[in-house]
Structure formats: C-alpha cells, structure tokens
C-alpha cells in the first residue's frame, strides 16, 4: 500500500520550500513509502493516557531578566547576507506575476 502520492509529495515540497525535481519526487516517493511502512509498526503500542515527550528531561523553565546586552553591529548582522542594500537584507519581489 502506498502512503504517498506524487501530488502529495509536490505539496510537501511546497510546504518545505524545496523545488523538488521529478526524479527526486519519484525517488522520495519510493523511499518514504518504505520508511512509512516501518514507522507504522509503532502504531500498535498502546499509548492511551500517555503524555507526549517534548523534552526528555524534567526541568523548570528558566526565565531571563529583562536586561539588554550589546547587539550585533549592523556590519556583523548583514556580513553573511547573499545580497544586501543600505544595511538591509534584500528579498526578491514577494509577489509574483499572476
């Protein structure tokens, strides 16, 4: 039984923001099917009234005081930017031609 369809895979690619090519879609489809099948085995373990684990260790949350530190300089902040302009990061146009 196939868990994944091609359409689904494309949709997941959109959600994950990865422009998968057709060859990848086919390959992942096949591989993820087998992973999904293996994962399905855990469905048989009874977990009624069992809380999910988010952190494996029990600790009380630490809340930090509202005190400021020296921020990064603008130069350091944008040093890694693929494209920058006027101290800001450049994004290509946000809306496409529709």
């Amino acid at each position, binding site marked *: 039984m196939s868990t994944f369809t091609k359409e689904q895979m494309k*949709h997941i690619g*959109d*959600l994950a*923001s990865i422009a998968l090519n057709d060859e990848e879609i086919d390959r992942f489809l096949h591989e993820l099917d087998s992973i999904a099948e293996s994962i399905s085995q855990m469905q048989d373990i009874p977990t009624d009234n069992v809380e*999910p684990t*988010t*952190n494996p260790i029990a*600790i*009380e*949350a*630490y*809340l*930090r*005081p*509202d*005190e*400021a*530190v020296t*921020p*990064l*300089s*603008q130069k350091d*902040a*944008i040093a890694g930017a693929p494209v920058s*302009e*006027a*101290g*800001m*990061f*450049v*994004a*290509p*146009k*946000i*809306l496409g031609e*529709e």
Partner: protein
Amino acid sequence: MSEKLMKFSEAIKRFDPVFGLEVHVELNTNTKLFCPAHYEFGGDPNTELTPVSLGLPGSLPVVNKQAVINAVRLGLALHCHVNEWSQFARKNYFYPDMPRDYQISQFDKPTNGEGYLDVELEDGTTFRVPIERAHIEDDAGKNTHIGGADGRIEGADHSLVDYNRAGVPLIEIVTKPVIGAGEHIAEIAGAYVKEIRDIARALNVSNGRLEQGNMRADVNVSLRESPDAPLGTRSETKNVNSFRGIEKTIIYEIRRQAAILADGGEVLQETRHWDEATQTTAGGRVKSDANDYRYFPDPDLIMLHIPPEQVEEIRATLPEMPSHRKHRLQEEWGFSDLEMRDVLNANALDLIDSTVQAGASAAGSRKWWLGEIMREANEREVSIEDLPITPENVAEVEKMIADGKLNNKLAKQTISAILQGEGTPSEVVEKHGWKIMNDDSAIEKAVDEALAANPDVLDALKSGNMKPMGVIIGAVMRATHGQADAKTVSSLIMKKVRS
C-alpha cells in the same frame, strides 16, 4: 475593481452579522521575547539584533520573564483564566521577514485562556465580548518594498528587510465569534479595541500606539441568515492598524458579503486587506494550501509554569481598570456625559487627570486640553501628548489665573508660547514680561490716547451707538500688550464717554 455592495441598513436587516478579532498588542519590554536585544521603534536597520533574533544557526531562544508577567497582567485584566502550564509552539511558514522561518507562538496550551471584556457603547449600554485566548508570540521583521508605487508590495521589484522588530513580544488576543452585535457591530468592535488599548496603557504593558504598529488587528466577518443558523463563511482582513479602519472594515465586509449572498453567491474563505486609500478591502493573494503551519511544541523551550499563587501575586499588582476609572473621574470632575465623551475622544483623560492632580480645576484643565492645545495638535497633525506641553505646565498656568497674575488672554498667549517650545509658564511670562496691568492710570492714559486718535468713534459712542467700542478696546489692548483687563478697559471707556 469596484465590488457590489448592499446598503448597510439593508444588510443588517437581512442578515445576522458575526465578527471576530485577533488583536496583536506589542509589549513595551526593554528586550525582546526570546533574546536580550533592546528594541526601539525607528532604530537604524538591523542594529537591534543578537544571533537569536537574527535566527543565526546555533542560536537558541530564552524567555523574557517580564514579557510573561506582562502577558499575565494583560490576561488578568481581560478576565482570562491563566493556565498553570503553558507551552510555546512553532508555527512553520516561509516568509522573508521571518528570521527562523518559523514563528514561536502558542498553540493548544496558551498562557491565557478564556476571558471577556465588557465594552460601553455610546447609548450607555454594555456589551460583553467573549475572549477565547490571549497568547504570547514573537513579531517578525519589516519589509520595505522598492520599485512599486507608494511603497506597495504590488508591483515592487524587490524588498529590503530590517529584522529589528523580529522577536519583539506580542500578545495576540483572540475573541470567540462575537454574536448578537447587530447594528452596533462596528461600534462594538472599535470600542473593544480602544478598551484593550486603554487597559494595555493603564497596565503599562504596551505603548498602545496604533500608528507605530504597537497594535494591529485581524478582522473576521461572516454573515448568516438568522441568529439560529450556523455561522457563515468568514473573511479575514489582516493587519488593520487604526480604530476607524477596523470599524470600516467590518461595515465594508458586511455590505460586500451581503451583496454576494443576496445574489445567491458564496463568500470565499480568504485573507483580505484593508486599503485606506480606496476605503475598501481587497481580496486574498495567499495560496489556500499555504496555511498548513505544522505547529508543534518548541523543543528548545520548557513549559511555562505559573502556579496559582503567582497569578494571585500578579493580580494584586493590577491598577484600577480604565472603565472603572472613567466613571470615577467623571463623577469627581462633575463632567456631563457629553463633556466626558469629548475628553475620551480626544485621548485627554490621562492628561486632564494629571493636570487636576497637579492642582488645577477639572473644568479649567478640560478647557485648555480640548481647546488651545487640541487646536494646535490638529494643526500639526500630531496627538496632544506629543506636544511640548505637560499637565504640570497647564496646572501652573491655571494657578497663575487663579492668583490673578494672568488674565484669559495672557494665559492663552502663555500656552501658545509653551507650545512653541519657549519653556515653562514662569519662564514664558518672565521672558515676555506679561502681567495683568493693575495700574488704572496707565490704562486710562491709553484710553485717552485711543479716543483722541479716533474722534469719530468717540462721537458715535457719545451718541449712544456702542458698536465701534471694540475699536477702542482693541487699540488699548494693543497699547498695553494685552496686559490690561478687558473689563476694566470697557468701564473706563464708558466713564470717559459719559463724562
């Protein structure tokens, strides 16, 4: 472009309107929600960042204690149930202004659960707005769109991103569907947001300045055939950032949806935005399959634990709520409902209160703030609290009047000079040498000179025609630089005319 609209009065008759609001309140903490970078509106771009707020690889969030306390304070003021355990969750979506490409928000375990807020309407009735939750989340950066008209995103060639605002704490207050609002729907929505603003300011948890983006609202509107029908499909108008905009959005959406439904059409579940220029909402551009946010508990953060004792400690620190205070002050000040409404509409309540506390009379304080000062603010297109005059200044002027040191005209001049930035009342009065002229002989001399210079006026006055008297008063006031008391001047003129 223009959509078919039904008259509001007709739409309200034919359909039962329901609204919901998601109000985002930006907290005024010193540092951001998850990192110790200070944020201030208007800072140089990308200078208020740590590796955490820039989303650098390896950086981790740590919760700001004050942000949590402020969230709980706001929640308590909104009568919310504060959950002993709450949890931050990641809301995953890609956008250029999101440094991590996920927002840290709260999902199924918000800090503040159900609550409500009573809002007072102009007709004196009260409407209870039910609140679903008030959760904590962090803000995104800011895009500046380049190459399009008026900095709009449409037609822009590219955008410049400043991440300074990224990570600033927000409280998102989500109402339940608000039913039964009927024809008052827009007023209720507006009053609700204003009340939240007033509460946030009273608690000092937010600056509450809509024009600086401290508050903004997503407005949901739907229509149904009748109050016992299931809720209709809603539209969601994003990021409306003025009270009027919120009210107009609701009215516009009711009119638009009513026209669609009356034609047998279907309302699309979509994201819209309010366009101030055209006074309309415009349809969605977000793909419908893009809103699978894949929320899951943020493994970088530990559940927040706020035990009931701590909630009670925080509750004990809450100040008087604005609605209670309004009623108390109105009574103390002896203002009529109409006078009080003007005060509130002018956002002058705090200023008048401070002025009264600085020693002035309530009536006198109201007169200045809603008169001279308001006029100046309107002229400069700023809000009155941004003018260079303090409640203490106004109280000092009032005291000078009471002490007989200034007359009304001089007081006005003094206020005006303060507004021009000339200094405190005593500095201004000193600088200009303004004082009421108590020396009748000097005034008499000025009156004589004025009458001598205007013999025809003197004749007219003598013949009983009092109309041109103003000419003489004006001349005397000019000669005495406004320091003469107008009543004294006119009685002196009459004395001369009759002699």
